[in-house]
């Protein structure tokens, strides 16, 4: 199991953390980015999944 990654919404700065998921929108903790549905949107600003970039720390 590789470590969890984070993806940042380029529009509003919201961070999708694979470890935490987005339980409020039916994405359970531990959901990999690849498994997040394409029609999921940023919970803060409504941006699409394509508007997220992998966070490089």
């Amino acid at each position, binding site marked *: 199991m590789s470590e969890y990654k984070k993806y940042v919404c*380029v*529009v*509003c*700065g919201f961070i999708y953390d694979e470890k935490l998921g987005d339980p409020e929108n039916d994405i359970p903790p531990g959901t990999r980015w690849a498994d997040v549905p394409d*029609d999921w*949107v940023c919970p*803060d*600003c*409504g*941006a*699409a999944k*394509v*508007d997220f970039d992998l966070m490089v720390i």
Partner: protein
Amino acid sequence: MDVLVVGSGIAGVSFAEEFRKLAPDHSVTLLTAETLGYYSRPLLSHGFTRDDIETRIILRRFDQLEQTGIRVLSGREAVALDPAGHRLDCRAEPDQTASLAYDRLVLAPGSAALIPPPFLGTPEKFKVLNSLTDLIGLRRLRDEVRCSGSQPRWAVIGGGLIGCEAASDLARAGDRVTLFHALPRLMERQLVEEDSADLLAVLQNDHVDVRLDAQVQGFAGEPANLAVVTQGGMEDGFHGILVACGFKPRIEVARNAGIATRRGIVVDTFLATDASDVYAIGDAAECADGRLYAYVTPIRSQALWLARHLAGLTQEPWQPPAFKPKAKVHGFTAVHPYLF
């Protein structure tokens, strides 16, 4: 090649950053009336429930943009365009204008808040939520009212997307909110009837007092006791009145230069205006399908496409992407797809 971009919202900044990446040999200048940096406009209507919003909303300071090689001219307004001479005049101080030459001009000026004519005579009685400066002003007003020991009481005028979002967020922040909407159901331009009814129930559950079919005719009263005048009479006791009746694309500079405009700046499928080397993107651009795209996903798509196009990487016309608008009303999820 010198590329001049007007506007530092999602459209202008996304374009400038992408074009810098794709075509580092060309120069990019970003002209903006803003002074507080590049911030997330979609978060404005969520700016009351979060204590850290005034710093968190800033995505990039202007000096950070400059570090990527974009020249930023902030606090300056575009005032006149000469498409034949490829020059744009801008103004910082009232008497201080400068003229900028360009090879390509990208207009991404965004929109102002739309103010219905009956309200224009009393600008001191209401506020709008269209910029970070507006948000900071509204937050200061809330703080003052709360410091005086009162619960802030707001009238929100307009039950469209922004009005519903702001009413929801103010109510969740602990304020009393009355939402006036001229039509019989909320967000009628985005939602089917069933979802409008759900939205009404969600807002009422958060103690937002929703007045449908309420035609607001004007405002009266004094700063701490403002009044909303409707066809049914007058309601007073508001600390603030927030007008959220839609957006008005900033087309004046283009129109005065003789560029074709309707509601927005008219562009073809290559996002080009009818003036050579002048393009328009964002919610001020009226696209070939007659639409103004006022949502994040298509606007970013326009910006990234235009960067590729001007970098010589694509000759295919811009195609609007599939996208799903979503109102950020606490506790509300539409069952049916949004209308657009």
